[in-house]
């Protein structure tokens, strides 16, 4: 990997001026920026749409609002006021409706519990009509009763004390830290009419830290304890998060102290969470976590480094790969400026940023190298402690991989490293640092407002808030970004099969993967690599086909014709395949993006052939490998690929090979192939025989008749068809064609015999047949 490559880039930056708003935050449930200004809430979505929501007069000053969140349908909003123990729920102002009838104003005061006052910590909208109140001692699940204009408690849990919590809106999971030691974690998942308790687990925090916290907290009075809790809450909420990797949920905990620098992953499931440990680099601090395309992205704000980890297809989340992040890409993307919540302006990035990045990169190479060496050394040491097989993997990855051995070894590794995450593959760890990403406004006069408050962006700022999966919110400078994997850069890093597998697990990687395949073929790499790649693609393709068949069979049971089509996987057409692409989820670590025959044909084979990137003989080898792979997964080879292969055999003058293919029926019998072969009889008469054989097997006499007639195979027509069939198949036009071809044959005996037969057969219909 070279320094000029980027693996992760910031996308879609949204900018606003924080000072212009009374309240600013990023709503994880809505995945929108919420900007409160006077009595208007501006919701800025990731696709740069701004929704204005007017809020009614509620008698609360904006400055006193501690929290405000809109319901998912944006019809209600809930508020916590500073120094107020109540939760407020209001409906938004809707001009079309009668306010008196539909608007609600609910004030909810949690009851006392053993003489303790419940202090509101926060609330979360579970649904448009369901809300979760989190207080210092309880978790209350309420339903919004619009008729009675009140909230009805669905369920509640009481705790000794809730110090902090984490909520994951996508799966409606809440994790609560319920003790002063910050080690006991309670979890709940809210489903429709059901609350599932996640087994309790403990964060592994060293005794020293626990003791000091207990001691500190125990010496404080009630108010000071609360203050301390809030303080620690910030620490713990920064260090833990809920992430989803390949359809598995994890609670991550970043553990940094003098001796330990680890990321702990607790798998959230019905069973007691299984802990995996990822060792972090020994340099830097200020770690935070994001997820990009099922990859774990760990930022190190001190040394301004981000590293990507892939948990791959291995069981128990064993780490298989690690990529470092390149510096953030200069903003080539358009930046959307939210000006006063009304205007939306766009600025293009400046190329100077790249130069600056390069200079910064040079200055920071030393730190990068340190990190790189450190990670490599750690892995090497770990590997030394393990068996020799792991070393083999390193060697294989560094050189050309023999995939079979590699898979075996990887499986062995899985068994050995179930409880600890190891960086097994020695990718080049790039430790790219980015201090600042400057971008200037080229049209300064046009966008004066922007220049006034900012023309540079500081990255890795301590104020950054990382939201899952891949958002960074900068409330101070007013930015929202999201991370995206730069697949083209990833593709450039693909040097072995494992890395290609890594690429295929990324969403939207199809075009890039096709480019990589094309490149591999163009380099005349070892055919076994191409073989492996095709098998990998077609394995998933086959799975997708069978899944789609099942889905379609159940979903389309009323449509007989479609059922018939779907029951036979050989009849897949492009519409089916498109449907498959939609149905396949990229979240399964063992499945990849579906790359079908059409993709391979048009994006790889056609381009290689048309641009003459590889010679015909090698292309034949490659296409045959692809056909072999398709056949091994019982996928019917499409006609266009068969046609292309036949053409290549002819062009490269290797008909003797083509005949062996036809002999073994590599190409499925079809009229198109038969027609093509008969048409090739001028090149080699054998082609005609093979073509007729196919027609015989297809057993469609009408088609056979038409093909025979079009190629003037009069004898075959006379021999193969009965008189009754001839009467049916011959119309006036076909009879004329037959007659003209018969006369051209100059075979008197033939002309005489046939004309005699025909004059009897068609004497009533076609008098003009007489020859």
């Amino acid at each position: 990997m070279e320094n000029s490559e980027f693996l992760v880039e910031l996308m879609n930056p949204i900018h606003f001026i924080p000072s212009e708003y009374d309240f600013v935050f990023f709503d994880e449930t809505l995945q929108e920026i919420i900007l409160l200004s006077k009595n208007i809430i501006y919701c800025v979505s990731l696709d740069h749409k701004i929704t204005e929501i007017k809020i009614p007069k509620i008698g609360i000053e904006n400055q006193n609002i501690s929290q405000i969140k809109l319901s998912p349908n944006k019809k209600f909003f809930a508020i916590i006021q500073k120094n107020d123990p109540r939760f407020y729920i209001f409906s938004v102002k809707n001009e079309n409706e009668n306010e008196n009838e539909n608007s609600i104003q609910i004030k909810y005061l949690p009851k006392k519990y053993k003489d303790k006052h419940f202090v509101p910590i926060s609330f979360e909208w579970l649904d448009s009509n369901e809300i979760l109140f989190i207080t210092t001692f309880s978790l209350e699940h309420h339903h919004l009763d619009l008729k009675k204009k009140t909230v009805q408690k669905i369920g509640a849990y009481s705790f000794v004390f809730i110090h902090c919590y984490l909520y994951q809106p996508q799966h409606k999971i809440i994790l609560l830290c319920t003790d002063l030691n910050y080690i006991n974690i309670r979890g709940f998942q809210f489903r429709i009419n059901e609350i599932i308790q996640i087994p309790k687990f403990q964060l592994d925090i060293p005794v020293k830290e626990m003791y000091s916290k207990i001691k500190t907290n125990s010496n404080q009075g009630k108010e000071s304890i609360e203050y301390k809790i809030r303080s620690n809450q910030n620490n713990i909420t920064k260090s833990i998060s809920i992430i989803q990797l390949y359809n598995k949920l994890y609670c991550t905990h970043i553990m940094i102290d003098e001796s330990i620098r680890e990321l702990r992953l607790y798998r959230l499931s019905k069973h007691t969470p299984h802990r995996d440990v990822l060792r972090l680099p020994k340099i830097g601090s200020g770690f935070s976590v994001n997820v990009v395309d099922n990859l774990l992205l760990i930022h190190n704000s001190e040394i301004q480094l981000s590293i990507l980890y892939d948990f791959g297809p291995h069981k128990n989340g064993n780490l298989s790969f690690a990529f470092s992040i390149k510096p953030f890409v200069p903003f080539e993307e358009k930046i959307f400026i939210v000006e006063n919540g009304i205007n939306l302006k766009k600025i293009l990035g400046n190329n100077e940023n790249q130069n600056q990045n390069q200079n910064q990169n040079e200055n920071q190479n030393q730190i990068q190298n340190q990190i790189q060496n450190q990670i490599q050394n750690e892995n090497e040491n770990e590997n030394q402690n393990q068996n020799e097989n792991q070393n083999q993997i390193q060697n294989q990855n560094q050189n050309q991989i023999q995939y079979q051995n590699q898979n075996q070894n990887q499986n062995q590794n899985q068994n050995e490293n179930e409880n600890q995450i190891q960086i097994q593959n020695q990718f080049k760890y790039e430790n790219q640092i980015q201090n600042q990403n400057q971008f200037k406004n080229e049209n300064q006069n046009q966008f004066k407002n922007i220049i006034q408050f900012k023309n540079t962006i500081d990255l890795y700022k301590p104020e950054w808030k990382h939201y899952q999966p891949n958002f960074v919110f900068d409330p101070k400078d007013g930015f929202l970004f999201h991370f995206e994997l730069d697949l083209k850069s990833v593709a450039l890093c693909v040097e072995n099969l494992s890395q290609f597998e890594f690429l295929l697990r990324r969403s939207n990687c199809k075009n890039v993967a096709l480019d990589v395949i094309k490149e591999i073929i163009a380099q005349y790499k070892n055919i076994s690599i191409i073989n492996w790649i095709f098998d990998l693609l077609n394995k998933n393709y086959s799975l997708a086909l069978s899944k789609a068949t099942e889905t379609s069979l159940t979903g389309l049971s009323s449509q007989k014709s479609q059922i018939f089509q779907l029951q036979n996987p050989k009849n897949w057409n492009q519409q089916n395949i498109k449907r498959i692409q939609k149905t396949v989820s990229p979240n399964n670590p063992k499945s990849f993006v579906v790359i079908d025959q059409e993709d391979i044909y048009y994006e790889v084979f056609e381009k290689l052939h048309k641009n003459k990137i590889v010679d015909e003989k090698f292309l034949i080898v490659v296409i045959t490998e692809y056909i072999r792979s398709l056949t091994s997964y019982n996928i019917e080879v499409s006609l266009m690929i068969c046609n292309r292969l036949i053409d290549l055999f002819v062009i490269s003058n290797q008909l003797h090979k083509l005949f062996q293919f036809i002999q073994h029926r590599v190409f499925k019998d079809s009229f198109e192939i038969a027609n093509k072969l008969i048409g090739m009889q001028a090149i080699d008469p054998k082609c005609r025989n093979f073509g007729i054989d196919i027609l015989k097997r297809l057993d469609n006499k009408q088609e056979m008749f038409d093909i025979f007639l079009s190629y003037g195979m009069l004898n075959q027509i006379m021999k193969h068809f009965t008189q009754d069939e001839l009467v049916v198949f011959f119309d006036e036009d076909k009879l004329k064609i037959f007659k003209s071809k018969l006369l051209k044959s100059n075979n008197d005996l033939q002309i005489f015999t046939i004309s005699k037969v025909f004059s009897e057969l068609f004497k009533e219909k076609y008098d003009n047949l007489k020859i």
Partner: protein
Amino acid sequence: MNIFQIPRFDSFFIFRRVINLKNEADKIILYLPNKIPIDKQLLNIGFAQATIAFSRTFSSSFPQASLHTEKYRWVFFEPEPNYWMVFLIKNASNTQAKESKKNEKFKYEFTNDNCLFQALRKGYYMFSLFYHSFNHLITNYSLEELRNKVNQFFSFFIPTVDFIQTSLKKRLLSLFQGIRYYPLDKNMFLKVYCFVNMIESSFSKIKHSIFLYGSNLIWSSLNLSDTNSLYNFLCGYINPKPAVENEYLVGIEEFFIGKTASPQLPQPKNYFNWSLEDISKLPQNPDLFNYPELVFHITQTIAKARSNFSDFITGPKLDSKKNFFLPKIFVGNEEKKQHVLLIYKANKVIFCLLVEPDEKLQTMSFYNQMKKRIETEIETIVNNLFKSEHILQISSQNELLYKFLYFNEMNLALKETLSMCKEFELRHQFLMYLSSIVDSFYNSERLFINQEKRYFQLKNIEQQTKAQNQENNKDPIENNLDSQKQTQTEKYVNLDQNLIEVTTNINNSLWIVMKRAGSRLILMLVENQNLNISNISKEVDKLNAEFFRTIYLN
């Protein structure tokens, strides 16, 4: 007392037609047996030349032809312009000794012209596989070198020729020099093909390859003519056995597989009884290897090999790591190029690699790399092929119910179940008659005319040959069969000149159906006295429906 003598080899000679020779003997390239006095040799060659010159008055060129005399059968073949190969076979005879008088009657029906011609043709193409051509050796080396190589090669080749052809199967198989393809499903075929591709792409010096399982061909990247020659070499001539005792096309597995090494290494049969000692004394030419050396090397390597042998037969010498045995062959579509023949054997698999001559071939690392690459993949393929063989054996049991031969000129595919026809083996009348039918159907020259045109121009003499064959076959049928009434022959000539179908009944007991459709020929035997021609037609339909339903035979 009657003494019956089978047809026997009299002589085989190769000569060239050169004008203004100082010494007449210079025209002789090879004469076997070489003990025959030079005068006698020149006499026979002179007679052959005269026959050729005489026949040219009727035809501008001299294509396949034979000369029948009372005692001898002469078969001529001109593989290259002005080079002639001639077989001289003494006809079978029946000697009746009455008192002191001997009355010897010769029977020429035991010898078939087409079979002998095929043997000549096969011999030449085998030779040209290893040494390019007669003219090439003379032009690039010397006449003496040509004589040496021809001598070496044909001394091993001639003993493999079956001059007697007493069985139906032998006669037919010697006539149809076909290739037995392994009937693999496309999945397995593609696996083999891709394996071959992988090896070829891993080693750029490999230009062609052939993959056999037992005596069955699975894949060849060579053209059909080269494939056929190399296939014949691999299947039959690596370890020639006396033709009388064994099948003409000997399954390669008999030599390669399952035989424990005998304490005494087998000696390949050859005309001059070459021994290892003789071979070691042969002059060494870096460009032209000695054929006896190849035959001995392969025979002895295989004999020493165990059943789990998986290694190179040619290439590195197994007993000595420093030496290499690199036989070279000439193959190519347009221009014949020299390639080193590396034969790799693993179980029943014979994997031949034709490699461009290179210095790397003299290093062990090259073979070690290649062996490692092959070994990693071939085991799976061998196992799969073994499984498919078992399945094939079960599925092919139905085939044994029919006695048929299928031959396709397009790809030289040959398939037959004639080994069951034992009771007809020695009825020479029947053989004679059958041969005549086959001859009328199958003209071997037509098949190879395209491939041989670079050496000589052949005229399509199909009509002449047919006429000749019909003429030859009339008498034996009339004379030898008990009664002409018992023979019913229906000959149907369709509008398509390529299609001929003959249904014949012999002695009210055996029906012979021969059908030709385009390039395909099917011969079927039905043994049933109670069938009439209508029933036979149904039997043929059954056979077609069972085995040939996937091909167009109309």
